[in-house]
């Protein structure tokens, strides 16, 4: 049986690890990405997501360097994204050591790009990242460009369309819950998991061990976690043993490995 995945999510700004609340508020510095990645590697997390949140020509090179350095010592899957617009961008990240490349705004602006990238690099290499926000009590909508631009797309409809365009995985993130540690958007996770056939990584809101359990039980294949790992004493080791003891299908913890 496939294991549920615990995935720290790194946000990079000019090559520094940062964290916000609801995408824009309360910026906090969170350390050196390579060093932090090594610590998480020792904790035995299952994968890493690294997103360049203010992409520019200069930051692109820094991200490539960071991924190259991570891949020298860390042997687990990396998903990398932020400002990916061309096949060359995808190729540069894969060559640097990324296993999957995450595409967000460009997939909305140019859906054909997603199909083209999947055809060139394989479906399994292409993760589509979807950020959404509630715009009324019963209605959520997709936002692109780091949460700045509203587009008239329903997140689940859009995720299904991305699946048709051959994305290998969906990273679904709630902007409202980002950095709040108030729990995942379980209703959305439940709906998305029911209609998608590709793996679903969920992001936004994890602040307790129970939150992760709730999201996985709602149907997520993986939980992306940022604030909780960075700012609380709930380490990946603690989360993993907690999930394991509750009977969730996760890898045995590294502490029980040797």
């Amino acid at each position, binding site marked *: *049986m*496939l*294991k549920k*995945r615990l995935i720290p999510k790194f946000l990079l700004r000019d090559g520094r690890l940062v964290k916000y609340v609801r995408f824009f508020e309360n910026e906090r510095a969170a350390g050196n990405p390579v060093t932090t990645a090594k610590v998480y*590697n020792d904790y*035995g997390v*299952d994968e890493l997501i690294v997103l360049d949140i203010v992409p520019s020509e200069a930051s692109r090179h820094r991200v490539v360097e960071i991924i*190259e350095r991570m*891949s*020298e*010592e860390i*042997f*687990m*899957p990396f998903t990398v994204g932020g400002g990916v617009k061309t096949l060359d961008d995808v190729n540069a990240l*894969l*060559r*640097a*050591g990324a*296993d999957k490349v995450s595409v967000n705004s460009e997939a909305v602006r140019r859906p054909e790009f997603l199909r083209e990238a999947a055809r*060139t*690099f*394989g*479906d*399994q*290499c292409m993760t589509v990242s979807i950020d959404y926000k509630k715009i009324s009590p019963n209605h959520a909508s997709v936002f692109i460009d780091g949460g700045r631009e509203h587009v008239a797309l329903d997140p689940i409809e859009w995720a299904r369309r991305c699946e048709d365009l051959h994305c*290998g*995985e969906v990273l679904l993130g709630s902007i409202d819950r980002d950095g709040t540690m108030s729990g995942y958007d379980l209703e959305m996770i439940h709906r998305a998991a029911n209609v*998608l*056939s*590709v*793996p679903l990584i969920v992001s936004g809101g994890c602040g307790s061990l129970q939150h992760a359990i709730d999201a996985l039980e709602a149907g997520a*294949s*993986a939980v992306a976690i940022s604030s909780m790992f960075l700012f609380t004493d709930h380490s990946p080791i603690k989360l993993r043993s907690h999930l394991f003891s509750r009977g969730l299908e996760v*890898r*045995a913890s*590294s502490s*029980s*490995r040797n």
Partner: protein
Amino acid sequence: MSGVAIVDYGINNVRSVRNAVEYCGFDPVVTHDAGAIADASHVILPGVGAFGDAMSNMRARGIDEILELHVREKGKPFLAVCLGMQLLAKTSEEHADDGVLHRGLGWFDADVLRLMPNDQALKIPHMGWNMVAKERNHPILDHIRESNLAFYFVHSFAMRCNAPEDVVGYAQYGQQVTAIIARDNIAATQFHPEKSQDSGIELMSNFLRWNP
């Protein structure tokens, strides 16, 4: 003989494999050169991408013949990973849209078929960490506890082996998934040892010290 040849056949990210070989204390050479492969102590065939393209790139560079000589005839220790493993099969139905199967190297009596888990809830690709249950022991699994045989998989197609004695281990994903095969000096994994943390590094390290 020195160094570890990592076979380069075009669109193929070999950095992680190269880094893992270095991490294990060996000297990797990424190459499709016959001389370099002849000189290497061990050969690794990595693999990311589509079967059809991979086979035509290999044939265009003459890699199929180089490997036939040095691996099959001369017995150099050989590890194929993911798509690399699938290329050892006789055929693959990946992107065989017009119904014509792609031909592989045919080193194993096996065919590559689309994953068809018997549970609608199981998603394709089979992506993530899964346990491998051993059918038998093999030197590349030395020192790895059974409870730690969790490896990172990413694939939509898998090998069906017609000769059960070639299979070292299976994973379960709504069907039996051939995870490790081996015969003589040849071993192959459907998962990515270079992405499987401690267990994967241990496996690679075992391979690099293997002298069948």
